[in-house]
């Protein structure tokens, strides 16, 4: 193997002394200061280009998202309007309005009990207060359960509830407004909620899974 270095002279290394290579670069190539200036400039141009592209993409995405959200909101509001106009919702509103006075009376009684207990030094049974508080809790819980059943479209699908709702419709047929704001007939019950398992599958795997 021939280890001799052949050179025509042009590329001969003429550097000598300490930091010779660094000095050679400084002599024959671009000064390091300019290099430092040029590299960021190139980077900035690329970065600006990328930024512009990203901004355009972001704008398009946000406009798409906004239009999607608007559509969803309008659909949701339409659904809400339809749902709020059902007779079963009127029924729960009627029930809530009826029990509001009872709740108020219960709270007033509890307050009076405390006032009598502390003010008049009378030994009011705390068990009585407990009963009243329990009743208040039961009243609120019952309303929530009924509202849940109505919202899920389950209310009125057994003998007792069907009787209750029919009774309400017949008794209040003179006062109830059977038409909504568009003049269409209100529906009596909300549509049945989809099977939760089916909802889970469709939400995780999309519409294709259902198909």
């Amino acid at each position, binding site marked *: 193997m021939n280890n001799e270095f052949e050179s025509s002279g042009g590329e001969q290394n003429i550097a000598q002394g300490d930091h010779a290579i660094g000095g050679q670069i400084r002599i024959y190539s671009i000064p390091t200061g300019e290099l430092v200036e040029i590299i960021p400039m190139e980077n900035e141009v690329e970065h600006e280009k990328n930024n512009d592209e990203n901004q355009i993409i972001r704008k398009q995405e946000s406009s798409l998202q906004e239009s999607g959200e608007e559509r969803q909101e309008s659909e949701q509001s339409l659904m809400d309007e339809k749902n709020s106009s059902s007779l079963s919702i009127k029924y729960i509103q009627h029930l809530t309005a009826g029990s509001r006075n009872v709740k108020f009376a219960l709270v007033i009684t509890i307050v009076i009990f405390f006032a009598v207990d502390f003010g008049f030094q009378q030994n009011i049974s705390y068990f009585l207060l407990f009963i009243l508080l329990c009743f208040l809790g039961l009243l609120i819980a019952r309303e929530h359960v009924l509202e849940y059943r109505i919202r899920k479209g389950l209310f009125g*699908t057994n003998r007792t509830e069907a009787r209750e709702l029919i009774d309400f419709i017949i008794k209040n047929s003179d006062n109830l407004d059977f038409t909504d704001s568009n003049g269409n007939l209100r529906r009596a019950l909300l549509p049945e909620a989809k099977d939760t398992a089916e909802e889970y599958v469709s939400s995780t795997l999309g519409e294709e899974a259902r198909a």
Partner: protein
Amino acid sequence: MSIDQNDRLTSAISRAFDILLMKYPTRTGLGLVLGSCITVVVQLFEPGLRAINFMNFKAVPWYGWLPIGLFTMHIPTVISTFRQKSIGNDLIDQAIELIERGNFSKAEKRQQYRLLIEKVANAAALKQEFQRELKSIEKSLAAEGKTP
């Protein structure tokens, strides 16, 4: 949870609430308030009530007044159970009985009840509309009768 299970569970909870609240929460609540108020009043005015000879108010414990309050408020419930057993419409009662006796699955039964309620609501809406039209015709006829 499937819709059948959801229906069964919430229906059972709702029924339990109905039992605890004695079917009519408003009446029960007001009965409890009345009973509690009587308890407090009796306790507060005990010295004065002692003067009444024919009645011993102290013999009734604090919880004794609650059933009295509840019963007082539920008198209309007692009367209504004797007076009206059904909704008052034979056709609706028959329809409910048919749905109950029919050999339907749970989903079918729910659907049948939904249909029944929708039909009742539609009939009530038509009746209301008919009555409104009737009133407007009567008014117009009355107005025509007044004008010479």
